[in-house]
């Protein structure tokens, strides 16, 4: 007794500990999860499934166009295919895949333990899944056939009475709610949950891009939500917003749609810029050149991106001063975009460039996106646009921006971050095969499409006569599309195989700069036991340097582990 009392008298620090629950497994754990990492993985898997579907639709179209006056597909099927392809790639792949990377990596990169609103985050994902389900459900009935822009009055019930357009409207609503909730979540997370010391000037550039992406989504999505609601009431509840026979305005649809549609382009490509701005410095072993210039260029592009929508409408009946305003606005965007490209090249300059697959995709992005940017300036000159708009030149341009641009960036991100997500590396050999097939396939497919447009071929036609060199050019493009598809399949196989059989990656296989590499791969549920104080844009570089210094000081050569040294 006496011994016990003397023990209780001794001052003992009060230890408070939570019971650690065993991690739940099985499919219910995925359905009910609110962990940003699991939600991120679900985003990535689902969006890549849609990427495969959209790609298959593209290949069917290329097969149809491989021969002049082909009868493989009828015009209805062809129109359905290009509508589904465009809608899938934009609303179900490129926009949400960026949300997938953002979900997984924004909290890790800013040293947070989850998103600000984990349940809202899960809701975002399931809204996306619902949107995809409603849209692809129409395959069993009547898919929409009005293109991803669904111009009124073609999309009104007089011309397309079946439910395809309605399925499209609900897709816009559901994926729109998904993105809007996700955007609010990203904004709240980035604004409030950064690691100590991570001021705005130390925010990783990918996080800057996701922040800007979120603001653009918050500004642009309500407009398209309003527009498709007006279309819905036009179709079913007797309004005439876009019906010219009742004083409605088809041009109003175009303005509302593109007021959303052009920011949407930057919504898709800015996070890609962010990925590139992370990958290039890591594999050049140099700090990013002009951090402030890149971060501010991101914001300036977003601002100007809100002011140029009518450059999609240069051929409509519009006064000259309107055309001039939107031409000059579009010119202005080229400046911050060019600044980014110059900064990336300058980051490579005098570095020691390591040709990993992630870097190959990143520089493949820079080289390809440059062409998309330059052809964008052609299209901004409105008299030139009068010849080029709605032809295959535009198809080529938008694929250089979104496929050669955003998708190459997504692949760079995939090869760069896969080891963090799964703990295993993707095969570099297979990755290189995939990269070269994709790069060559892409250029063969789309470079010639500029000439198709210059040779007089409009977009969205299911057949053409073999005048000029149309059939030859189309055949080149079709062959390229299959090479590109083969390259994508190699990466898909690489992913499926490496999840189980890849080389274990360890916490920091690339010697990264940002905080996601300061935890195990895959990270534990709580991400970090200790969040370090951030002193620069490259906190991991600081941490490694600190460890080197400490191990030099220590007499014993035994290298301390990352975490223990930080605790010390």
């Amino acid at each position: 007794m006496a011994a016990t009392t003397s023990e209780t008298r001794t001052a003992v620090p009060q230890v408070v500990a939570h019971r650690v629950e065993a991690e739940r497994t099985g499919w219910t754990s995925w359905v009910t999860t609110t962990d940003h990492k699991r939600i991120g993985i679900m985003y990535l898997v689902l969006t890549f499934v849609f990427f495969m579907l959209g790609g298959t639709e593209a290949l069917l179209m290329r097969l149809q166009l491989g021969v002049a006056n082909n009868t493989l597909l009828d015009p209805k099927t062809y129109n359905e295919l290009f509508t589904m392809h465009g809608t899938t790639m934009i609303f179900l792949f490129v926009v949400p895949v960026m949300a997938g990377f953002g979900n997984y990596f924004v909290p890790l990169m800013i040293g947070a333990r989850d998103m600000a609103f984990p349940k809202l985050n899960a809701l975002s994902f399931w809204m996306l899944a619902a949107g995809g389900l409603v849209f692809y459900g129409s395959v069993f009935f009547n898919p929409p056939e009005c293109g991803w822009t669904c111009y009124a009055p073609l999309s009104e019930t007089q011309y397309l009475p079946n439910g395809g357009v309605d399925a499209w409207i609900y897709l816009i609503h559901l994926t729109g709610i998904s993105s809007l909730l996700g955007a609010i979540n990203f904004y709240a997370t980035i604004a409030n949950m950064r690691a100590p010391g991570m001021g705005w000037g130390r925010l990783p550039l990918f996080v800057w891009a996701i922040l800007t992406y979120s603001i653009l989504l918050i500004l642009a999505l309500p407009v398209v939500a309003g527009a498709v609601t007006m279309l819905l009431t036009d179709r079913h509840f007797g309004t005439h917003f876009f019906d010219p026979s009742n004083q409605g305005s088809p041009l109003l649809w175009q303005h509302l749609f593109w007021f959303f549609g052009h920011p949407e382009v930057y919504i898709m490509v800015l996070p890609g810029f962010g990925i590139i701005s992370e990958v290039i410095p890591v594999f050049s072993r140099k700090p990013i050149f002009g951090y402030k210039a890149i971060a501010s260029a991101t914001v300036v592009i977003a601002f100007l991106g809100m002011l140029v929508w009518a450059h999609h409408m240069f051929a409509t009946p519009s006064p000259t001063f309107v055309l001039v305003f939107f031409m000059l606005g579009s010119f202005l965007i080229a400046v911050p975009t060019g600044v980014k490209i110059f900064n990336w090249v300058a980051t490579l300059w005098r570095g020691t460039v390591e040709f990993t697959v992630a870097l190959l995709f990143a520089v493949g992005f820079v080289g390809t996106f440059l062409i998309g940017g330059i052809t964008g300036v052609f299209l901004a000159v409105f008299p030139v646009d009068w010849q080029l708009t709605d032809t295959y030149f535009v198809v080529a341009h938008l694929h250089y921006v979104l496929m050669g641009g955003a998708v190459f960036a997504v692949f760079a991100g995939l090869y760069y971050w896969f080891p963090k997500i799964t703990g295993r590396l993707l095969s570099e050999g297979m990755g290189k095969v995939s990269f070269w097939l994709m790069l060559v396939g892409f250029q063969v497919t789309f470079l010639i499409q500029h000439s198709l447009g210059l040779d007089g071929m409009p977009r969205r036609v299911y057949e053409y006569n073999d005048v000029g060199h149309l059939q030859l050019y189309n055949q080149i493009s079709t062959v390229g599309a299959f090479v590109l598809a083969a390259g994508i399949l190699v990466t898909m196989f690489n992913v499926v195989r490496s999840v189980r059989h890849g080389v274990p990656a360890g916490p920091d296989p690339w010697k990264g700069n940002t905080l996601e590499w300061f935890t195990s791969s895959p990270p534990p549920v709580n991400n970090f036991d200790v969040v370090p104080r951030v002193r620069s844009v490259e906190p991991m570089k600081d941490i490694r340097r600190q460890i080197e210094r400490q191990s030099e000081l220590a007499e014993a050569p035994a290298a301390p582990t990352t975490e223990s040294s930080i605790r010390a």
Partner: protein
Amino acid sequence: MNRIPAALGPAPRYSRSRRLALALAAAIAVGLALAGPAAADLLTPESGGSPNADDIDSLYKLVLAIAIVVFIGVEGALIYSLVKFRARRGAVPAQIRGNTRLEIGWTVGAALILVVLAAFTFAKLPGIRNPPDSGPGGLQLADGVFVAAGPTKRLPPNGKSLNVCVNGQQYIWRFTYANNCSSAPLEAPYSYEQLVVPVNTTVTLDINSQDVAHSWWIPQLGGKFDAIPGYTNHTWFKIPGNLAGKTFTGQCAEMCGRNHANMIASVSAVSPSRFEAFLEQRRAQLRAADQAAAIQRKQVSKQIP
């Protein structure tokens, strides 16, 4: 350290793939160079049928020239830095974080290029936008019976042009020869699909649609102008005299439904005298058809008690 993958190892392994890439780039360049002469319109839009199409073509070529310089400069810098600064044993990356003067320099440089482009565009714009007077050998046109010029409607300096109302409908174009499209007389001559026009004559078009959005486009006669229901769009062309007898083809450029691919249009250029004969023939045909219809109506009304 021990987890670094094989691909991050020393550089020599990449020389082969780099050589491959260079060979590939060279092959593509040679292929393009060979394809150039083989295909006349590989790199530039179609033109030759009208001064506005020619002006667009020359504006396009100016943009293309600047684009090629920018393209070679930036891709060159990119490929150079990839080859020159690849990781080598013992190489130390320079820890540069930026260079304010350089960055301001290339921002201003990019802006200057765009100022030049804007200047080119404004210089070329009047020739593209504003129709000229008809040539001396053109159709003789009456004075001042036309609708006033509006924000998009332009008329030649002397106010005289041959006006055609272009009406898009799923999936055909209708052409009515009339000065005022909103109140075109019923007996105004018209045709479908093929528009016959005199050479050396400024032809102004009032473009609209009666159902969904379409887009008027004959590449050799200038750019696209959308036909949007509820709106009237305007453009013009003037076919030079030496092209009499030539037919220019084009097709609808705005997705308008399932048969969009087959909504074709053509413009036949003829001499002014043949044009007048054509109009007279169309008028006679219309009168004959009207009279035949009137007779039929009478017969039908007799049959119905």
